């Protein structure tokens, strides 16, 4: 009976996995097992490596004893178990290979048992391997020959990002290039980079913002009125850009984007019915500025902000946006200077009205399009 059931264990597993494996064909699943708990965290810096392998000591001891050809001892007291694991460092190092340029490196073995409770998830035991990196090494390799499944290999070079790969126990992980990571950009470099991003977000990429600014410009030819509106708009969008980027306020894009389009339509339509700066116009421009700030934040989030230079990037992006808006107004001044100097009626009739009408149509179209998207 005993023999028969043992033989049968293979059939059992085979049947269990078949259902899942059939499904692999034509975009379907693959495996009958979940991901294992073993992880190797590798840190390579200052000419040395340190590797922490997260282990379950109750599983590690019999594994080391099995590979070491020893008698398997079970249910040992914790202290005895940990003592035995620490003594089996030689077996561990036979199965776990650290290499540079394909040549194995001699590692120092240290077992760090979980200190408090036997809670693998919260206080994991670790095996730490340490050693020097050979001068001029071009790549790092790691083979963990103690796992009967997949484990996560996380490699970090200096302060660079963590590179994760999933590796099958016993198989070598893909070599990790040790080419020096690019030096972190200077604050000035980040500032310039985000200034350009802010500028180009208006010119040439931000047609909706350009039309809004033109709507502001077209209301009146008095430069003081234009400055008042632009300043109000700037203050407002700076507030929401900062608040949104710091996660204090947030509105979904599907609300913000149609509202931005609506703001464009509004200023253009108002240009058709009034020709002087009214107080409510400033209040509305401020409100619209708040919305546009959230729109800028959406773009900035997509671009990503470098964590070490978050504030620099945020401020310079905003300055870039301002520079873009001022450029639009400057260009509009130049384009309309002749007509503005002739007489107000002609300017309004042949520039303000048709341009505002066109902007209004576009604004309404975008509002509907974005609302339905």
């Amino acid at each position, binding site marked *: 009976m005993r023999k028969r059931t043992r033989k*049968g264990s293979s059939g059992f597993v085979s049947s269990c996995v078949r259902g899942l494996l059939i499904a692999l064909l*034509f975009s379907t*699943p*693959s*495996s*009958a097992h979940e991901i294992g708990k073993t992880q190797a965290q590798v840190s390579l810096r200052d000419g040395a490596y340190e590797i922490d392998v997260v282990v379950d000591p109750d599983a590690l001891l019999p594994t080391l004893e099995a590979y070491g050809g020893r008698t398997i001892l079970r249910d040992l007291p914790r202290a005895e178990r940990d003592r035995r694991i620490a003594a089996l460092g030689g077996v561990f190092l036979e199965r776990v290979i650290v290499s540079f340029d394909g040549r194995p490196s001699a590692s120092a073995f240290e077992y760090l048992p979980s200190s408090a409770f036997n809670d693998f998830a919260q206080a994991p035991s670790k095996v730490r391997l340490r050693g020097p990196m050979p001068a001029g090494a071009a790549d790092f390799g790691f083979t963990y020959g103690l796992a009967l499944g997949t484990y996560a290999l996380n490699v970090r070079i200096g302060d660079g990002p963590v590179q994760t790969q999933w590796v099958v126990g016993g*198989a070598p992980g893909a070599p990790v290039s040790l080419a020096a990571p690019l030096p972190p950009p200077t604050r000035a470099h980040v500032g310039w980079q985000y200034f350009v991003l802010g500028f180009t977000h208006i010119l040439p990429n931000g047609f909706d913002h350009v039309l809004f600014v033109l709507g502001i410009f077209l209301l009146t030819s008095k430069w003081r009125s234009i400055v008042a509106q632009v300043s109000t708009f700037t203050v407002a969008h700076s507030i929401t850009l900062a608040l949104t980027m710091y996660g204090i306020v947030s509105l979904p894009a599907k609300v913000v984007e149609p509202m931005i389009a609506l703001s464009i339509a509004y200023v253009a339509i108002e240009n058709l019915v009034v020709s002087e700066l009214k107080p409510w116009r400033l209040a509305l421009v401020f409100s619209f500025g708040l919305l546009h700030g959230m729109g800028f934040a959406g773009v900035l989030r997509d671009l990503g902000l470098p964590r070490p230079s978050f504030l620099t990037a945020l401020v310079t992006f905003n300055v870039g946006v301002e520079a873009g808006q001022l450029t639009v107004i400057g260009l509009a001044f130049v384009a309309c200077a002749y007509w503005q100097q002739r007489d107000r009626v002609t300017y309004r009739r042949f520039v303000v009205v*048709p*341009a505002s009408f*066109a902007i209004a149509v576009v604004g309404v179209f975008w509002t509907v399009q974005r609302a339905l998207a």
Partner: protein
Amino acid sequence: MRRLFTPSTIVSIAIIAAVAAMVAVANWRDVRRSRAVFSRPLASGTRGAGTTREDLRARIVDVRARVAARPDDIGLAVTLADALVRQTRITGNTGLAIEAEAALTRALVADPSNYDANRELGSLLLSQHRFREAVSAGEKNRDARPYDAINYGIIGDGHLELGEYDQAFAAFDKMMSLRPSAASYARVAYARELQGNLTGAVESMTLAADATAPEDAEALAWHHAQVGDLYLRLGKLHEADAAYVASSHAFPGHPFAMTGYARLLAARGERSSALALLQELAKTAPTPDLAARTGDLLESLGRHDEAERQYALAESGWRVDAPEPKNLARFLAEHNRRIPEAVAIAEKAASERRDIFTEDALAWAYFKAGRLSAAREAIAQALRTGSKDADIHAHAKAIEAATGQAAAR
């Protein structure tokens, strides 16, 4: 006419034309961008996407680099996920499913309703044992495209793993009626096997192999290996041998063919050769299952200490490296180790899924714990599909005999 083309009207028209041009350019650019991110997904095993070991490796390297450069390209993400899933079957690297899911999730941000990506995601949920989620995803995709047979496959696979066989078999029937294909035939074969119709299972699995495109070397090898396994269960060793040879011919060194061939050698009494084959396989793709099989062979050869070491590796592996509660529970019960723990593990597994193999593991753990009444209930559930699985029947027989003895006392 002259009055119409005054400088003033020309400026007005120019402004309107400029605004219109700006809008046109903006929209054209958006359209171009949205088109640019859609590569055509390339399914493994179709023309231009071979599945030899080298084909898969090269395609993964290539598509990984392209996905890194264009993470929002859904077509590329689907192609990568599909190739990674197929690679998992050869290497046993279950972490590749996580990489595949991450690529799909990233790409879906730009187009959450993309059908191809959602369909692939349903498959990945299955591979991560998230069966209930997989069924839901499959049903959602089925509602989107009721005539895509694959969705019924995903729904059926999910129900099957949860032990909901009526729903599973109904889904497979629907899949088959929509599109007879290698994937459908293979599912029908498994359904027949579960219902105890091994001869019918061989017929369907052979049809699956015949329906597999020659470009899909890996799938061809897998189907032949399955045919070999079924013949082995029927005791037709010669036919099984031929099927494993066909599998190895299509894809040299396919792990399923190698494992199956080792079983065939053991069945012929060539246990040392079988052992050598398994040990060779363990060098490149070690699994707890392989360690347990190796232990069984060593035990049968009288090499008890070595067998014990392999069992220790299998147990550690099922605990830590490739967690599979029902396998672990059954293994512990089989080897009379930590029976209360085996019962607890099996009960927890059975609270999540009621497939016949989990029920069998639960029954055997109860039996070893001396809980005969509970064992009888569980083994009755394990027998409910009519499966002729030799282990389930051996367990049922032992439980019945013990119950009879207990009643006699």
